[in-house]
């Protein structure tokens, strides 16, 4: 169910559709807010995450600053979701790459095509 993002009593709250946002990406994003904010992730309903942050030192945050914070959180959630997509989509390739890099040649393949020998080095 769609729910508009909001600021209530100094707490910035964002709602995210669980079909679009991965749980991993939410936690990875919240990790970076853990230094200066109280953070919370919960289920608003069956298919919507409720993500909230509240400044530890809320004296520094007036309403304008809270609006900026909401904007930043919305943007960061998208960024971390994109990062999560790349990570998951390329995980196998990354594993293959590292395995090849540290192998002793057992995973190497010959490059495609044939090596021409116009000079005649091959006897």
């Amino acid at each position, binding site marked *: 169910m769609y729910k508009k993002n909001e600021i209530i009593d100094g707490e910035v709250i964002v709602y995210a559709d669980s079909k679009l946002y991965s749980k991993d990406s939410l936690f*990875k994003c919240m*990790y*970076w*807010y*853990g*230094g*200066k904010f109280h953070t919370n992730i919960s289920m608003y309903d069956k298919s919507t995450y409720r993500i909230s942050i509240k400044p530890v030192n809320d004296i520094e945050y007036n309403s304008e600053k809270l609006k900026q914070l909401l904007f930043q959180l919305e943007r960061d959630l*998208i*960024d*971390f979701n*994109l*990062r*999560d*997509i*790349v*990570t998951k*989509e*390329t995980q196998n*390739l*990354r594993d*293959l*790459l*590292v395995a*090849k*890099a*540290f192998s002793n040649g057992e*995973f*190497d*393949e010959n*490059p*495609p*095509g*044939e*090596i*021409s020998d116009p000079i005649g080095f091959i006897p």
Partner: protein
Amino acid sequence: MTKKTRKFRDISNFNLQQNENEYYLLPFKFHRLNNDKEIIVNEVGDYLTLPNGTVEKIIKREINKIKDTDLYGDLISNFFISEEVISPLIDVLATRYRTKKLFLNYFTGLHIFVISLRCEHTCHYCQVSRVTQNKDLYDMSLLNIDKGIDIMFKSPNPHITMEFQGGEALLAFDNIKYAVEKAEKIAQEKGKILSKVICTNLALINEDILEYCKEHDILISTSLDGPKFIHDKNRNKPNASSYDLAINGINLSREKLGFENVSALMTTTKLSLDYPTEIVDEYFNLGFKGIFIRNISPYGFALRSDKSKYETEKFLDFYKKALHRVLDYNFKGHFFTEDLARIFLSKILTPFNVGFVDLQSPAGLINGVIVFNYDGSVYATDESRMLAEQKDYTFKLGTLDDDYDDLFFGEKSQEITEIWANEGLNGCSECAFQQYCGADPVHNYATQGNMYGHRPTSDFCQKNMEIIRYLLELMENNEDIKKIFQGWVKVRS
């Protein structure tokens, strides 16, 4: 039938008709450089700066081969996307990855011998506790020197560096001579290349010592915090000017050993923060080819003294001002580098990594550096033994009486290795600057109480991320600065 060759083919051989989602992603990470630009970095550190929003388009398969020819070509040629599930050039990428991690090939190179804990200076930020008396208690014994050398030559690294530190190392110069001569003999027998360095404040340097250094190819590394009013304030020597002694020592050492065999390091204190220009000028005027702008290490007296403490943001502001002063000299035609930037730039602009133990992943401790303390204890890094001076033995690997395997591959080493790669750390694992940065479990422990660390509140992370971002932004906005930076990382013969 036409014989297949690997020569460049005519354009008619290539499929230019492509559906929107006909490319595959290769592993990469991204970061917002500023409000307009974002940067993508692949697994081997190649990067592209792009207008904000481009990453989303790449991931959503909205980059079209025909309409976005240049971008598409850049993404293919820089290993960000591939037209096949497994790029046919994956072996090339793997070789480049291996090159980036080449420092792992050789294992421990730098062996620090804390030859004496005694010192005649009383610097307020000193990272080790200083003691001035009792030679027997605070100098490394000949027996421990023998054991240290024995362990040092068990390293598989063909190039061994033996570095003498203190306290003030020259207070135990006779022991240095003993160690040098013994190590040289064994190096020759084993066919190893041996470099020797004495870290000294130069107060005790004289012609005889330098004659010996020349005869044995020993390099001199000293401390210089800036102009006299900063250096003397930071580095107190009772009844003398530490600055005058250092300058005389630098001049005498250069005269005897040659310019290139004498280096200096500065440490940034609270006082230094107001004088970035003066500090850079001091190094330039003394004829150094560069300066390493170093923040204070969070160890020893540095943590206890209000004269030393400052916030990372203030250091970053100081750093940027100093960097621009360095660049000013380059704009005037001088080759003069800032060496922290140079380390990052080597990682960013070249296929290679840098043997700098503080910025490696896996971390440089143990596999890059090991410390033999004056009392026979063995520590993972120089900073680890400084913690030990505060009675914290977390990074003590054992003693010189232990076996090589127990020290380097024992339980303690294994515990550290679990968290020594930034590829597997929260916050670092998806950081775009991962390949340019490193892991530092000792720093994490000293500043945050555990080896794993917490990136959002880490000064190590805050400092490195901002400096890397700033260097990339400078290169993006100013082609002349980019050329200067490229000049800094060129191999010079």
